[in-house]
């Protein structure tokens, strides 16, 4: 063989081998590139799907939406004939199929049976729920007899609960690759994990919200658009007198008198998207203000651009208990009426006496004239006392009550006041005694105001102690000589325990029931002012009483600087001797 021929053949051979090698390498590179492209495509698909989850689902726990996003975007990943979902609802199963390639009813039925088998195996129980079926995408060909040749099913599990399934099916045998199927499983599981986390976050937030609502003093409950009671706090249950742990809307509505038509008003608030306020409704013995407010979706603008106004989730109802305010308002009204009455009585007497004097001038003898003038003087003094009491009470209310202290002895005050009331006491055959400890030092106090306190307390005791009774005044210091303790004890009719707590309040005389047969005149401000004067000195006032056993009122005045109340010494000693006697009214006693 010629050398040139050999050389030519060799060259051709070498070139051929080189071409083959190059082709193999190129083929490998192409395959690698294709794999990379596929991976890239899958990765991009995964990212875009996750973004779509974020955009479309947001903070919603809607399984339908999650499945909808997955099945709706599946065509970007690989071809298939149908993508179906089966979602578990409390009362039914929802079976949806997106038809990508034309199939017939037989195919759909096969998918449904396969998904039911999957669900039953997962749940370990037979499924008897009704199934709602829906189709989307291409129309069914009734004549198509294609059967399901390959499929795979993905369970959607949220917080260890199966909430639905996705099944992707094809008319062709072994149509899906393991990689494609695995990718879709991974995406679905990733979405399920997101849903699980979201569900946990929402459960935590719901817990916080429930705690907050539960701690509110006002009654609060919320209903959704289907009139289901979403939340109710204990205050609302208390106002509505509901004893159930988990009441329903029927329990709530039946607790409110039907004339208020709360159900209708809740519907109106939701339909008209307007708040409704009921200024006052009566529920049993309570009076309540009702605020019904529609609850809107705060993120509605990001969810949809179609609606003009935010969608209503439901309505919240706030029950504000105004029973106390209403009672207080009535109390004030009664107080004003009582004051007017109390002031008018002496004025009427003064007017009557003065008219009698002026119209019968020269006809009335000196004795009658003197009696009429005494009436005028007495009633004028009563009127002045009452006006002073009202002014003192007003100063106390305004925090402007002041005492003018000077150094003096309590013995002097007690003696003066005891002497003052002796004549009146003798007239009622009542004995007034005083027991004053030796050596009580001089200290700073307002003699006029403390005298007023003693005056008030002796006057009260005299009013409510029957004939033959004893009123005892005592004064002593505590062991540390930091306080003077003054007691006024009578053996009058005493005060029932339930009435004692309001005795020192401004309106005590109005709310209390006066005892039968006893109508004591007065503003009822006496004890309120006593308390104010004693506290202005840095002292305390207390009451010991029992029906038919008498009453002891104890007040303390600090010997040292006012306002310092040692723990043990601040508690005045218990009343000593309480003697049985008749008992007048509690509230009207101190006036």
């Amino acid at each position, binding site marked *: 063989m010629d050398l040139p021929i050999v050389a030519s053949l060799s060259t051709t051979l070498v070139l051929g081998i080189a071409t083959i090698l190059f082709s193999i390498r190129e083929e490998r590179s192409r395959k690698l590139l294709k794999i990379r492209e596929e991976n890239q495509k899958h990765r991009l698909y995964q990212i875009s799907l996750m973004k779509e989850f974020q955009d479309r689902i947001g903070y919603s726990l809607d399984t339908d939406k999650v499945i909808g996003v997955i099945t709706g975007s599946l065509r970007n990943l690989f071809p298939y004939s149908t993508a179906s979902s089966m979602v578990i609802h409390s009362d039914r199963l929802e079976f949806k199929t997106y038809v990508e390639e034309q199939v017939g009813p037989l195919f759909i039925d096969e998918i449904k049976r396969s998904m039911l088998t999957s669900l039953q195996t997962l749940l370990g129980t037979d499924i008897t729920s009704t199934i709602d079926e829906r189709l989307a995408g291409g129309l069914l060909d009734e004549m198509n007899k294609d059967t399901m040749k390959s499929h*795979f*099913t993905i369970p959607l599990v949220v917080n260890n609960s199966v909430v639905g399934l996705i099944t992707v099916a094809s008319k062709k045998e072994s149509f899906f690759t393991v990689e494609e*199927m695995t990718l879709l499983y991974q995406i679905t599981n990733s979405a399920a994990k997101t849903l699980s986390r979201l569900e946990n976050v929402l459960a935590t937030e719901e817990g916080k919200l429930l705690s907050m609502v539960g701690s509110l003093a006002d009654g609060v409950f919320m209903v959704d658009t289907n009139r289901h009671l979403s939340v109710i706090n204990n205050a609302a249950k208390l106002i509505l007198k509901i004893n159930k742990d988990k009441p329903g809307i029927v329990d709530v509505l039946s607790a409110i008198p039907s004339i208020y038509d709360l159900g209708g008003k809740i519907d109106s608030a939701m339909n008209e998207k307007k708040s409704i306020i009921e200024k006052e409704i009566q529920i049993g013995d309570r009076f309540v203000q009702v605020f019904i407010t529609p609850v809107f979706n705060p993120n509605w603008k990001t969810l949809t651009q179609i609606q003009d106004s935010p969608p209503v989730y439901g309505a919240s109802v706030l029950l504000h208990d105004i029973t106390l305010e209403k009672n207080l308002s009535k109390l004030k009204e009664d107080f004003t009426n009582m004051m007017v009455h109390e002031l008018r009585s002496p004025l009427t007497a003064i007017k009557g006496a003065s008219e009698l004097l002026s119209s019968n001038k020269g006809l009335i003898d000196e004795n009658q004239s003197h009696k009429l003038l005494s009436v005028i003087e007495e009633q004028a003094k009563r009127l002045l006392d009452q006006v002073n009491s009202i002014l003192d009470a007003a100063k106390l209310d305004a925090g402007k009550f002041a005492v003018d202290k000077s150094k003096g002895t309590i013995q002097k005050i007690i003696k003066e006041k005891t002497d003052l009331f002796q004549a009146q006491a003798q007239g009622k055959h009542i004995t007034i005694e005083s027991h004053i400890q030796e050596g009580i030092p001089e200290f700073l106090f307002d003699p006029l105001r403390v005298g007023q306190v003693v005056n008030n307390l002796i006057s009260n005791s005299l009013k409510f102690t029957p004939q033959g009774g004893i009123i005892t005044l005592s004064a002593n210091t505590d062991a540390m000589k930091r306080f003077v303790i003054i007691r006024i004890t009578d053996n009058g009719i005493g005060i029932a325990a339930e009435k004692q707590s309001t005795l020192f309040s401004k309106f005590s005389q109005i709310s209390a029931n006066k005892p039968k047969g006893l109508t004591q005149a007065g503003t009822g401000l006496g004890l309120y002012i006593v308390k104010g004067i004693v506290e202005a000195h840095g002292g305390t006032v207390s009451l010991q009483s029992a029906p038919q056993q008498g009453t002891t009122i104890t007040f303390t005045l600090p010997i040292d600087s006012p306002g310092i109340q040692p723990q043990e010494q601040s508690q005045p000693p218990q009343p000593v001797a309480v003697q049985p006697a008749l008992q007048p009214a509690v509230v009207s006693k101190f006036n």
Partner: protein
Amino acid sequence: MLTTYDQYKGQLSSVFGKYIRIFGKDITLAKLKHVEGITVAPDGTVVDLSKNLNDVLESIINEFTDLSEYVVRTTMKPILTDLLKQSSPSISNQQIVEQKPELRA
């Protein structure tokens, strides 16, 4: 009483039968092909099982956890419990769940 080799085959066959019903035949059989030491018939019946059961179980768990952790946990738990009881009778079910990640590692 100790679980026999054949009983494990039966238990695994039952598990794979469930997988076929839950996930579908295509993906179940495809995943099982990746598991070394086991041969499975198209209906999920275990035809052949390696003596090294721990490795086989680990591989099964790895393959199917991709599909559903929940399903693997609920279906494999009885087998793992049984297996663990045989090696340490005092270990509780709770510990089995806790030890699972080690098995997968």
